[in-house]
């Protein structure tokens, strides 16, 4: 008549009926919780966009090198159409250190024709190239040509979020906002140009490369403002198919609202 007073001892193989039932119920319940959890966490994710990083398929591109404010290659697509491809380094670094070797050999590269093999990153009409080896950069024509001067577009007031373009345009998903913020800070501190992704309806562009008031690159100073909805003011210029904006970092206004880019 042990049935009312079951007692489980771990080192004995015997389990009372009630204990067996409770154990089974608990296991089923726990598995139910796991299933419910897997369905909820799996189902309720924001859908990622189709940004792309060709990490295992290298591409060779050729174009006119343009150093300021951030290294780019102006690639001819067809008669009269060009694309400015932003150059980046491996990992969370900018392209500059990869260009040092060839600069030492060839001097100033601005306006010269280079061929670079790297991995493409692209989304929404913008293309970037990751360079992982300075040996994959070569000078294909040293005569200066096609050099475009920036076009002044006037003062603008824009809202959006500052991202690192490498992750945003393809390497990571999501590549913006709170979750990604620490990574973006590392990328930008490592030399990747900061980009403003706008969330307003300005008539110019969704993307702006940010520079200081003199048009020089900014990295460390902008770190506290990354990955948060903000309002920026500054002089906008157009360089090929990229826009740049000269800002005073200390004038960036953080907006107290939810992230709304992509």
């Amino acid at each position: 008549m042990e049935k009312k007073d079951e007692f489980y001892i771990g080192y004995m193989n015997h389990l009372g009926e009630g204990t067996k039932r409770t154990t089974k119920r608990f296991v089923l319940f726990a598995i139910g919780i796991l299933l419910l959890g897997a369905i909820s966490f799996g189902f309720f994710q924001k859908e990622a966009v189709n940004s792309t990083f060709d990490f295992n398929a290298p591409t060779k591109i050729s174009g006119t090198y343009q150093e300021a404010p951030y290294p780019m290659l102006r690639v001819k697509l067809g008669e009269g159409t060009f694309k400015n491809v932003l150059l980046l380094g491996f990992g969370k670094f900018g392209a500059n250190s990869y260009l040092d070797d060839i600069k030492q050999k060839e001097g100033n590269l601005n306006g010269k024709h280079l061929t670079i093999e790297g991995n493409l990153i692209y989304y929404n009409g913008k293309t970037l190239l990751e360079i992982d080896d300075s040996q994959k950069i070569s000078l294909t024509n040293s005569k200066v040509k096609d050099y475009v001067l920036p076009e002044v577009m006037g003062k603008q007031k824009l809202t959006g979020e500052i991202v690192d373009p490498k992750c945003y345009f393809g390497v990571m998903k999501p590549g913006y906002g709170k979750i990604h913020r620490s990574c973006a800070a590392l990328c930008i501190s490592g030399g990747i140009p900061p980009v403003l992704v706008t969330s307003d309806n300005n008539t110019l562009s969704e993307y702006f490369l940010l520079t200081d008031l003199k048009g020089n690159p900014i990295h460390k100073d902008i770190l506290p403002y990354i990955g948060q909805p903000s309002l920026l003011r500054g002089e906008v210029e157009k360089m090929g198919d990229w826009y740049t904006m000269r800002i005073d970092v200390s004038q960036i206004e953080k907006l107290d609202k939810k992230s709304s880019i992509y």
Partner: protein
Amino acid sequence: MGLDYKLVLWNKHKKTYDKIIALGMLLYLVVFVALTLALNPETTAETMIIRAFGSLAILMLHIILVIGPLSRLNPQFLPILYNRRHLGVSMFLAALVHGAFSIIQFHTLGDVNPIYAIITSNMDYGSLTNFPFQVLGFLALLILFYMASTSHDFFLKNLSPKIWKGLHMMVYLAYGLILMHVFLGAFQQETSPFTIGIIIVGFITVTSLHLITAFKESKIDKFNSEKNSEGWLEVCEVDEIPNDRAKIFTVGNERVAIFKYEGKLSAIHNVCKHQGGPLGEGKIVDGCVTCPWHGYQYLPHNGQSPPPFTEKVATYELRLNGKKVYINPNGFEEGTEVQPVTC
């Protein structure tokens, strides 16, 4: 008690539990990955791994945290308590995959070392919504690592049960850090009422089960009775104690278990020498008080583990007056023989 002795004999259940844990985790990962691939095909493998293992770990942690109070409320949950350690280590491994992939993806290949990057790449420590939530996850992972690596019986023996138990109470600190990690991190951006709801319901379940258990046990501690003229305490009537079982009372500042067996009454200190299990919730098996947690045994009349084992607990003197049971609140040395009272 001999550890080898147990290891050999509880293999059968242990293996079954381990299989269930592995299958449960696999089921979770398969369902999560299948849903993600079907509904969110543009996502990256890294993000999928980070999310699958992070969410798996936090759900497992909730399951782990309800086992303790459930088995205090109903001894039928004890077999699960018994195997909780492996569940804990498995949860740590899931959290480790999540944390390691997060660190590799977000914090490596930069201009500073990854651990330094976790702490410094977002300096908004003063803000709630912008707080560097990764730091919270990192601290929690360190605690879980520490607990998982000291979970073996070797450490239990070498750290003394009290210290071991204390260290393992840090799981609550880790739980708090993880909740903050998720609410100040992922939930700020990946906001869904369902996932948030699951975690909130989980938190409420865990806390209320702990509160109910604490309340139940505080009733024992509040027990107060008149001392008679010689300093003996009246505790209960004989019939209130079931056969081969005990009732627990707090006398002085100690919990004492009064057992009834073979028409006799004996009182011993309630705290098991192994990991502090409540002996008064155990049962007399083969003439020995048997701890409900891992089955250590003590003889009721002298508080000693039967040879060859050497554990000893304090014993207490009882007296019967009609149906009323009295106890002398001054216990004896551990392992002191006391004549049981017949009832």
